[in-house]
């Protein structure tokens, strides 16, 4: 019973803070709500018995969000409180579109049959099993991801670096 209430709480926090990211006017508040949302998702991972993933999630997104926060401080003029907003018509259209998407997703979920999952290894989230899967079954994607990192590094340097004459 305890787990149910923890799930309700975490789900409420994550949905609420995600909504606040979208609607709050001050960009600094957006970043802070995003941090709250990511921590609640890490809580979900712990609940799902994926401890290593929870730790990695906190490590990675603490870094990534720190960088986003830096960009907010560096690029935005925080003196003017409100950013220029889209016209009401466009906002209305955005709300309708995403509402329809939600209806479609929930409808698909309702229409599908409840499947019976074969019960596998309950320790799937432990770091040892993850490593075994990653370095044996997913060898090629792992190596390809290093090339992705290389490309991203080159791209970021090419775009961001001013050439010194």
């Amino acid at each position, binding site marked *: 019973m305890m787990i149910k209430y923890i799930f309700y709480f975490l789900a409420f926090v994550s949905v609420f803070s995600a909504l606040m990211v979208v609607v709050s006017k001050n960009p600094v508040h957006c970043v802070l709500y995003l941090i709250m949302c990511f921590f609640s998702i890490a809580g979900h991972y712990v609940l799902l018995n994926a401890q290593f993933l929870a730790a990695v999630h906190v*490590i990675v997104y603490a870094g990534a969000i720190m960088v986003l926060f830096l960009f907010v401080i560096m690029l*935005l003029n925080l003196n003017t409180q409100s950013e220029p907003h889209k016209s009401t018509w466009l906002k209305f259209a955005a709300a309708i579109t995403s509402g329809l998407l939600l209806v479609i997703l929930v409808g698909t979920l309702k229409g599908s049959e409840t499947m019976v999952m074969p019960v596998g290894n309950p320790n799937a989230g432990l770091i040892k099993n993850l490593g075994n899967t990653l370095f044996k079954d997913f060898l090629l994607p792992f190596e390809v*991801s290093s090339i992705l990192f*290389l490309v991203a*590094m080159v791209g970021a*340097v090419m775009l961001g670096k001013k050439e010194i004459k």
Partner: protein
Amino acid sequence: MQSNLYDYLPILLMFIVAGGFVGGTMFVTHKLGPQIKSKIKLDTFECGIESQGNARIPFSIKYFLVAILFVLFDVEVIFMYPWAVNFKELGLFGFIEMLTFMGFLLLGFFYILKKGALKWE
């Protein structure tokens, strides 16, 4: 061996102590210290000289490249934890796998150094 929710009690305790310390100190310092508010005391202080403007100006974006590259190297490290735990089991093959992975990243790192992206302009 499903891990029990009670196993997380020490972690929860740690969070409570950490949060409680922050909250407690803030509360206590506000209550204990003498509170004298005057216009001069609450004025912004800038090393003895008159303060100019306010603190919320957009500032230099010179080191954004360092920040961006930090994200990439940060994510790269997450692949190394599972490797380190399974190091003995994977043996030489796993070592070569990781060497290839790190080789590509090192290539990128040399590119960054050669381009002088980390230099202060």
